[in-house]
C-alpha cells in the first residue's frame, strides 16, 4: 500500500516527524511530502525511519493551509497514496480537514496507535476519558497521529529526495509576524512535563517549577485557573479546555486534580503528584504521590534530579 506522510520541516526535523514516518512504515511504502528550505541531506535522514522517498515543494514555506492542501493532494495523486498521515499538531488541525474534503477521504484525528486487526484506528475521545475505534467508509484515509503515541524506530538508511511541484496556487493567509518563545519545548511534543496549579500561590513562585523543568529538560504547564488569572501564558493551560498531552512523565505540584484537568493529562505514562492535601483527588490518578508542601518538595526534587543528571544520566 502506498502511504503519504506530510511533515512540517519548517523548524527542522522533530521527533513527531520520525513518529509519523515510523507509523506510515507500519502501514506500507512511505513517501514523504514537505515544503520549505531544509537541505536534501537533512531530509534524506527520514529514510532511517522507513521513508522510501521524500518529495519537497520548495515554492512555499508552508504557512498557508490552502497551499499545503493543494500540494499534499498533488503528492497523494502522484504516488497514488491510499493513506495519508499527519502529526496531530496545529498544522494538521488546519490542513487535514481541508484535505479530507478535497480528496473525499475519511479523516481520523487524534490516533493513538496503528489500525487494529479489524481495521479500526484507536483515537482519544471525551478529552482522553475514553478511546473510540474508528473505521473509514471512503476509499482513502487520512490519519493524524497524536504526538508521543508511538516510538520512532530506525530501521532503514538515507533515502532519495526529489523536488516536487505541487501547484501550490495563491495563499489566502498573509503572515504579518511571528512570536516564538526562545528555546522552549513545545508542550504537546514534550516527553517530560512539570506542571503547577493554584497551590503555588503566585506567579513569583514559578521559579521553583522552572528550575525543576530545567534540571529535567522538561516543558512547563499549568492548571486552568493559573492561566485565567494570568500567572502563566494560555498555551501552558492543560486539561479538557486546554491542551491535551501524553508525555512520559507528568509532575503536578499544587494541582487538586479536578476531572477537567485530569481529562487533558491522563494519557501520560507516569504521573507524579505533589500536594499538601492527602485527600486531593489527583492522588487517585497518580503513579507516585508525595504528600508535602510544594515549596519544600520541589527544590528538594530539583536537587535530586541535578545529582542524578550529573552522575551521567
Amino acid at each position, binding site marked *: 500500500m502506498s502511504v503519504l506522510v506530510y511533515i512540517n520541516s519548517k523548524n527542522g526535523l522533530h521527533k513527531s516527524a520520525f513518529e509519523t514516518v515510523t507509523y506510515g512504515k507500519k502501514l506500507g511504502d512511505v513517501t514523504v511530502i514537505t515544503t520549505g528550505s531544509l537541505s536534501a541531506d537533512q531530509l534524506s535522514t527520514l529514510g532511517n525511519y522507513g521513508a522510501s522517498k521524500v518529495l519537497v515543494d520548495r515554492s512555499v514555506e508552508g504557512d498557508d493551509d490552502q497551499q499545503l492542501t493543494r500540494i499534499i493532494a498533488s503528492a497523494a495523486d502522484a504516488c497514488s497514496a491510499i493513506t495519508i498521515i499527519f502529526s496531530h499538531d496545529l498544522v494538521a488541525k488546519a490542513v487535514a480537514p481541508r484535505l479530507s474534503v478535497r480528496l473525499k477521504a475519511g479523516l481520523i484525528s487524534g490516533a493513538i496507535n496503528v489500525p487494529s486487526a479489524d481495521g479500526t484506528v484507536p483515537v482519544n475521545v471525551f*478529552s482522553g476519558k475514553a478511546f473510540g475505534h474508528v*473505521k473509514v*467508509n471512503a476509499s482513502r484515509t487520512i490519519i493524524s497521529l497524536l504526538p508521543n503515541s508511538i516510538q520512532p524506530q530506525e530501521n532503514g538508511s538515507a533515502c532519495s529526495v526529489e523536488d516536487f511541484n505541487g501547484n501550490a496556487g495563491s495563499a489566502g493567509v498573509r503572515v504579518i509576524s511571528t512570536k516564538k518563545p526562545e528555546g522552549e519545548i513545545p508542550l504537546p511534543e514534550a516527553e517530560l512535563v512539570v506542571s503547577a496549579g493554584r497551590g503555588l500561590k503566585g506567579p513569583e513562585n514559578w521559579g521553583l517549577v522552572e528550575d525543576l523543568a530545567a534540571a529535567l529538560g522538561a516543558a512547563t504547564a499549568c492548571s486552568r485557573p493559573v492561566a485565567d488569572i494570568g500567572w502563566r501564558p494560555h498555551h501552558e493551560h492543560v486539561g479538557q479546555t486546554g491542551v491535551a498531552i501524553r508525555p512520559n512523565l507528568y509532575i503536578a505540584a499544587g494541582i487538586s486534580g479536578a476531572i477537567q484537568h485530569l481529562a487533558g493529562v491522563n494519557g501520560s505514562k507516569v504521573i507524579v503528584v505533589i500536594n499538601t492535601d492527602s485527600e486531593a483527588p489527583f492522588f487517585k490518578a497518580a503513579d507516585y504521590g508525595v504528600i508535602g508542601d510544594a515549596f519544600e518538595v520541589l527544590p528538594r526534587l530539583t536537587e535530586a534530579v541535578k545529582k542524578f543528571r550529573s552522575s551521567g544520566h
Partner: protein
Amino acid sequence: MKILVCISKSPDTTSKISFTENSTKFDENGVQYIVNPYDEWYALVRALEIKEANGGNVTIISVGSAGDEAVIRKALAIGADDAVRIDADPTDAYFAAMQIAEYAKTNGFDLVLTGKETINYNGSQVGGMIAEALDQPFVSVATKMDVNGTTLTLEREINGGIEVVEVNTPAVVSCAKGMAEQRIPNMRGIMAARTKPLQVVAAVAVDQMTTYVNYTMPNAKSACKMIDPSNMDQLVELLHNEAKVI
C-alpha cells in the same frame, strides 16, 4: 457583517463517561448537555462583540435533532439574532461540516466561526472542512481577531509560538482561548431566547465518511505509591529504574 457561529452540544465536563449497547454508543443516561465551551466562550462571544462594535447579524447554526434545541436556546440566551437547526443526527464531522457549508453557501456569510474543537470528539475537523467546501481561507486555533472592513487581523497558535496573520473576508475561523471572555446569560437574555427565531432546515444527502465502531475505557491505574517528602532521591531512583521515564 454577517456572521455564522457553528455550535455543537457536548456533555457537561463533569459527566461520567460510559457506553451502552455493547460499548457502541455513548450512554446519555443522566448526562447534561452544554454548548461546547469553545463554541460558546470564544466563537459566539467574539461574534457578539464584533456585532456590538460594527453592527451586523449573528446567526447560530447547529446540526442536530429536535432534542438539541434546548442547547441551541442556551446559546441564544447569550446573544445572537437567530438560529438554524439542520435536522439530522451529526454522524461524523464531515457530515456536519457539509450541512453547514451548504447552508452557508446559499445564505452567504462574511465570517463563519467555530470552536477549536469539541470536548467530546476532539476532532478539530469541522472548521477546516467548511472552509474547503466554501473555498475560503481558514485560520485555525485563533486566539485574537480584529475586524477592519473586509480584512481580519488574527493571532493564531502555531507549533511552539504565535503568528499574526491577515485574511480577507469571507473566511472561516476556529476560535480558542484568548479570543473573548465567557459571558453568563442574564434573565433578559434567557427570556428573549425563548422567542428568537429558530429555523429548522432539512439536511442534504451526504456520505458518512467515518464510523465510530465501538469505545473502550483506559485501564484503571494501579494504586499510587507514596514517597516520603524528605526523600526525593528515592523518587528519582524510582522514576529511573522502575518507571523508566528519566
